[in-house]
């Protein structure tokens, strides 16, 4: 289930570079369907355990602390801080052909989880550990969006 979303509207769209192949499309695990459904509206939601009152990422069928199943999705602020980052000199897979160099980062969200994503847009090549970033969305082929981040 997803609790009512009172936070902000749809996030900014970042289109893939002109002529770029489709990224490898993420499958949808059963536990993460509400996460992916929210990305259709470019909204970032995170799974929470109501027993622990702590966020969970990636979404699971059970809380990785208490193994409880009282789980809910709640909106996230859509901002973060770069925990670690690396520029790929060559594409990591065929879905990223033509995009290198590009930045892969671990981003800490203020809710208390860490996500892997690309840093894209103006200023992306210059980002460093500790920099602030904001969530953005790259369209996927099935109407979902992929979470990415843009500098501060």
């Amino acid at each position, binding site marked *: 289930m997803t609790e009512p979303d009172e936070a902000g509207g749809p996030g900014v769209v970042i289109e893939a570079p002109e002529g770029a192949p489709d990224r490898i499309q993420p499958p949808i695990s059963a536990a993460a369907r509400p996460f992916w459904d929210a990305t259709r509206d470019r909204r970032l939601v995170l799974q929470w355990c109501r027993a622990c009152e702590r966020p969970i990422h990636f979404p699971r069928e059970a809380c990785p602390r208490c193994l409880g199943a009282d789980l809910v999705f709640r909106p996230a602020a859509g901002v973060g801080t770069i925990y670690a980052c*690396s520029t790929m000199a060559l594409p990591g897979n065929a879905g990223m052909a033509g995009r290198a160099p590009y930045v892969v980062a671990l981003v800490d969200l203020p809710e208390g989880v860490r996500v892997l994503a690309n840093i894209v847009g103006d200023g992306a090549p210059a980002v460093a550990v500790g920099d602030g970033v904001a969530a953005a969305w790259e369209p996927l082929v099935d109407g979902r969006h992929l979470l990415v981040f843009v500098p501060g």
Partner: protein
Amino acid sequence: MRAKAAIVGVADAVSPTGELEGSVRALEVQVIREALDDAGLTIADVDGICCATSAGWAPSMELAEYLGVAPRWTDSTVTGGSSFEIHVEHAAAAIALGLCDVAVVVYAATPKSSFKRGGAGYTSRQGLPGVTASAEWELPYGMRTPMGAYALAASRHMAQYGTTSEQLAQIAVDTRRWAVDNPKARLQDPITIDDVLASPVQASPLHKLDCCLVTDGAGAVVLASAERARSLRSAPALVLGTGTCHTHAMISQMPDLTVTGAAVSGPLAFATAGLTPVDIDVAQIYDSFTITVLLLLEDLGFCPKGEGGPFVAEGVLGPGGALPSNTSGGGLAYTHPGMFGIFLLVEAVRQLRGECGPRQVKGAEVALAHGSGGVLSAMSTIILGTEATA
């Protein structure tokens, strides 16, 4: 279980060309035969089989069938490059409990020659995307695997502790100094820090020479009880202590990119052995990337957390250094056929036997072999000693 079991036979098949003739199965059989012969045992003595990889779904079962062995103890644990340290830990425990008498641990892979023949090279991390967590949460972002994960760890360590590319490069320089004295090593020419820094950046901040090789290679070790070891052909390397810990599978789930499970496995191994890091005469520390070694030196207690950069900067790991490490030339210069853990064990045993010729660490009585698997995911520490340390 201190000193209840020993590594009694070892073998490696590695070529300076980086390529080997023959199938993976043929290479496995070759190194098993050689390791048994090294111990003065035969395949008829083997009643325990460990194997991490196979073309099918049941590595130890398929290998045992191929060998014509019906083992009473079996282990297909796969944690990537640390699989073989975990196999040794399990086998030593099994032998101590009487679950088996003689156990074989083996690995072979031919990614380099496979790639040249039009194959996919090393494939264990290149399966088709399915509904796995990594396919859903990491693969779409195109992180180079495994290199990108280690680059992220390096970026974090640099930001948090001020570690420099020059300090990481020193690890590659010292490892190469050992490879100069290993005629089997793929890369035998000495290098400088400038050479490392001038090599292309693959995934910042890691340069090409911060990264391990892709070669063919095979290795095997044979374990038996300490008691039986005393009547065998080669001097035993007693298993003094072991420890294992895995903390995550995906790099995005690693709790702290500057602290690995070696901070658990190392103290466990030292406690069982009744030793501390200052007792280690020679170390084999999985060098998939230079940053791997730096993190593991800290986590294993050879220097405080965050001080790995200054610790390695003076050449402590190289010939003549205070902590001779990766004396084969390591994954950076000797061989790296996808999973390097078996070769850490082979070299540690040979150092304890005094068989290493020009790269021999004089008087080595206690050796550490530390395997790392996945993306800093699965850690396993093995401490070995000569008969004098029992």
